[in-house]
């Protein structure tokens, strides 16, 4: 109950202001207009073809980029967590990748690849790899020296060492990384899409912004936020709790 109260108050305020003070539904849409747009989106109707196709394209891009970023970030992170020199070498590139906004990456990549899916996906990979990398490196560094020495004495090496030792030891870090990078991804995926693609929610949002209708933009914002929160609550939350319990049990 307490959770919902401020949100309800917020919607009430929004309604009051857009109904009595800023009466300009095109720019300041009242909640009922946004709701109508939400229903329109859910009924698969939009100005540039079926909305589900656009949403699907965006989610597919996000999932692809997020998976790739997770794998690359984790592997590089393990390496960097083990060897200080690798970490120092990676620090600046990772940091540049992270700090340049996705829209700029998209522009540079667009020049290299043309209007292709690889453009927003690689831009997202560049931005999402960084937090995974940093988190993993931190996790690996936190592994106790004793365990490492034990590994050395049993001659556990290479792939076996990665999957049998490093990854289980940093499982809780990995879930946290996945969670953080997914949340980050859902926030920035639209930015990567507005500049050059045939479909996607970013294109729709740009369309509504070009024609100056705010209601559908807010509606899409609510949808994406809801998807992000649902995934976080239903997938990552339970996963993180389970891993935490397991690691406490094994101690």
């Amino acid at each position, binding site marked *: 109950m*307490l959770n919902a109260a401020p949100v309800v108050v917020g919607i009430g305020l929004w309604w009051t202001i857009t109904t009595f003070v800023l009466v300009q539904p095109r720019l300041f849409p009242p909640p009922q207009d946004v709701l109508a747009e939400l229903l329109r989106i859910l009924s698969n109707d939009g100005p540039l073809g079926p909305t589900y196709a656009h949403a699907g394209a965006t989610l597919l891009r996000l999932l692809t980029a997020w998976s790739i970023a997770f794998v690359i970030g984790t592997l590089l992170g393990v390496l960097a967590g083990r060897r200080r020199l690798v970490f120092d070498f990676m620090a600046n590139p990772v940091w540049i990748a992270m*700090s340049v906004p996705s829209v700029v990456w998209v*522009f540079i990549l667009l020049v290299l690849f043309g209007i292709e899916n690889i453009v927003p996906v690689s831009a997202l990979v560049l931005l999402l790899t960084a937090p995974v990398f940093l988190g993993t490196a931190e996790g690996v560094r936190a592994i106790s020296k004793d365990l490492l020495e034990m590994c050395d004495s049993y001659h556990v090496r290479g792939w076996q060492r990665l999957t049998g030792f490093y990854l289980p030891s940093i499982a809780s870090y990995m879930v946290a990384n996945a969670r953080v990078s997914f*949340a980050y991804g859902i926030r920035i995926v639209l930015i990567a899409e507005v500049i050059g693609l045939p479909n996607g929610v970013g294109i729709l949002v740009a369309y509504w912004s070009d024609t100056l209708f705010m209601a559908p933009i807010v509606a899409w914002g609510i949808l994406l936020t809801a998807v992000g929160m649902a995934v976080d609550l239903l997938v990552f939350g339970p996963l993180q709790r389970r891993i935490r319990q397991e690691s406490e049990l094994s101690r």
Partner: protein
Amino acid sequence: MVRFDTSAALAQIASIVVLLALWAAAAIIVDMRALPAPWLVFATLGELIVSGQAFAPLGETLGRTLAGFALGMVLGTGYGIAAALSRTFRELTLWLLQISIFTPTLILIFLFLISLGRTNLTVIVLVGLVVMPVVGTYIRDAMGDFEDELTEMADSFKIGLRERVTGMYLPFLMPPLLAAGRVAFTLAWKVAFLSEIFGFPNGIGWQVKTGYDIYNIQLLLAWLMLFIFVLLIAEQLMRLAQRRFVKW
């Protein structure tokens, strides 16, 4: 007490050199207006700096970033402390916080620029709001770890609220604040830059957008380099501060 680590510095420099070499090679192979060579870009950047043109946009972006960053840090720290101390407050704000974490930045930018108008204040508030949940969760979790023992200690010694804040929480919070600050500053700088790209008509982001619209990639990259340099310097400063404080 900051030890200078030679091999680390070398590795860091080496990576930059490798990146520049890759860029130069790509520019020579592609040979197009769309991908100018690094020396051309740095020459343009040099001109921007020497002629003084660089400073007004840099100052505008930096000013808004810093103001928004400060706002976000204050709000975030306040939230973190309140959420760690009061269960009711935490429950009340849980959904709001979740919403603010997951709302797409692009939509926030469009909304803010259109409904609050294109003023410095809009961007500052926007930056602050994006930064706040990041700092807030950081501080809340850091407080949560130590809250019980700290409160117990404070209770048994009967320490007043004011002293509790200045004497206990703040020194204790310094390391997580610095860590959160590093992440938050990068975020703040990026959000300020993005608002300029998507419609705020001055600052570095606006210059990048203009370069882009008129297909002057050399100019675009020169501004981008300036953006990266400033961020690098800020990052190094904060790393230094962090090392100092954490050592202490």
